[in-house]
């Protein structure tokens, strides 16, 4: 009870807040949707750019909803969590589950546009895709958590977003396939975890097996989750605010 009640309360808080700020939904889905339609139509291949655009939606949602941690910790709800007897790990888990649920829901909304891509993944393919989106949402949320916990300001967070996460997305096979990339970029793509996330989603939509991509994504998420729990513990042992 002492562990799961805080998890539940944090998870539901994320959902309630999100529901009350519906503009956020439109914001995170809107720009990837525009990218997708413009780039996809420009190259005459909506199908190829679809998984990448969906991953971008999930990434925006996951990463920005963990950004609230920075403010929350200084003045906000998180302050009272930090002086409550609730275990720190339940706080980490609740926040991460809440944010990944939101990112997943937004990915699923984006998935509704799949008929426009020309792909016909079928029921099994759609279920697989839903699972892949969940994994991706979790991975990006945990990554966002790890980053946010180290940050003193939201400006720093934006810098990481622009200098690290967006470039990773650019070389993830979202915009061009690995086979067409030149020498060192190809190596970069192989080493990039986001590549595997995009693959994990592209495979079921195009009707082939994407287990390898899913396994890499899940492993990345697991490693990041361990880092998140560890850093949350460390940070409190020292000081915060």
């Amino acid at each position, binding site marked *: *009870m002492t562990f799961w009640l805080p998890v539940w*309360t944090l998870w539901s808080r994320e959902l309630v807040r999100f529901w*009350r700020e519906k503009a956020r939904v439109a914001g995170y889905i809107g720009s990837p949707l525009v990218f997708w339609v413009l780039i996809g139509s420009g190259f005459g291949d909506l199908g190829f750019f679809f998984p990448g655009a969906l991953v971008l939606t999930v990434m925006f949602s996951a990463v920005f909803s963990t950004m609230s941690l920075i403010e929350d910790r200084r003045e906000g709800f998180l302050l*009272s969590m930090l002086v409550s*007897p609730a275990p720190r790990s339940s706080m980490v888990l609740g926040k991460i589950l809440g944010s990944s649920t939101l990112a997943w829901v937004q990915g699923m909304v984006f998935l509704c546009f799949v008929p426009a891509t020309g792909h016909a993944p079928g029921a099994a393919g759609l279920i697989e895709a839903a699972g892949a989106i969940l994994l991706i949402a979790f991975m990006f949320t945990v990554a966002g958590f790890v980053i946010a916990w180290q940050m003193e300001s939201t400006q720093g967070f934006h810098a990481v977003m622009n200098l690290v996460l967006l470039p990773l997305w650019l070389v993830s096979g979202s915009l061009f396939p690995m086979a067409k990339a030149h020498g060192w970029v190809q190596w970069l793509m192989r080493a990039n975890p986001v590549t595997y996330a995009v693959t994990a989603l592209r495979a079921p939509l195009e009707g082939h097996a994407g287990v390898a991509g899913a396994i890499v994504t899940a492993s990345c998420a697991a490693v990041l989750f361990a880092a998140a729990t560890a850093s949350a513990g460390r940070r409190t042992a020292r000081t915060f*605010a």
Partner: protein
Amino acid sequence: MIVSVENLTRQYGPRTALAGVSFQVDEREIFGVLGPNGGGKSTLFRILATMLAPSSGSASVAGYDVERQPAEVRRRIGVVFQSQSLDKKLTVFENLRAQGHLFAMHGRGLAERMDEVAERLGIADRRGDLVETLSGGLRRRVEIAKGLLHRPAVLLMDEPSTGLDPGARRELWQYVEELRDQQGITVLMTTHILDEADRADRLLLLHQGKVVAQGAPAELKARIGGDVVVLDVAEPARLLPELRARLGVEAAAVNGSLRVEIGNGHRFIAEAVEAFPGAIRSVALHKPTLEDVFLDETGARLT
């Protein structure tokens, strides 16, 4: 005693925020920590709230050490932060419920307790309102309700009056006194507002991380005794030694005026005006305030 602090020190790198602070708070007491900003109040508050570890020394609440047994301490303290710790996008009751969950309260027990604290703090009719729609005074009440929800023995409040209008401030004090009188709760609050400090049962004056005085407000003021006279003069540096030489009165130069603590203020004023015709531009006489106590002990102004 319910709060005990011994030789507490906290350093931030080379800067010393608390330098060997010791004091004790009794049960059912409203204990104020008064000092200028940067005097060490916030650091003390954060150590007692288990948010910050001391560099040395110790602090305990209800017999539990804040550093070694933080979970036990957290169960027994209610914390009211100066900055908002409410989720503005949630309603009053959603905030309270979330707080209850953090303390493993749930179900009917939690619902009843929420009604009880909301009733007591006069926010029951606002239970379904989003916090962002509430005034500053109401928000502070929700914060207090939140802090009291799990029936703490000690309520820690950081600058509770800051940002409140005089009406809300009066109400707040009424609640705080009720808490002490009707529920036997101990309240420890930091403040830099004199009126607020005056209403505390006992006070600790902090300056540059050190305790400069402690005791009941009336007792502290009585130490000065008599009156405080402030002379607004053209040349304080010249008049100061003359006051000593001719009237045997020790004055202190503060902000371009001369300040004198003296048993019989009106007689001194008459003598001074007679002795230094034309040198004194204006004269003020008042009974000692906590500001005077602070000035007397530190030579620095409180605000």
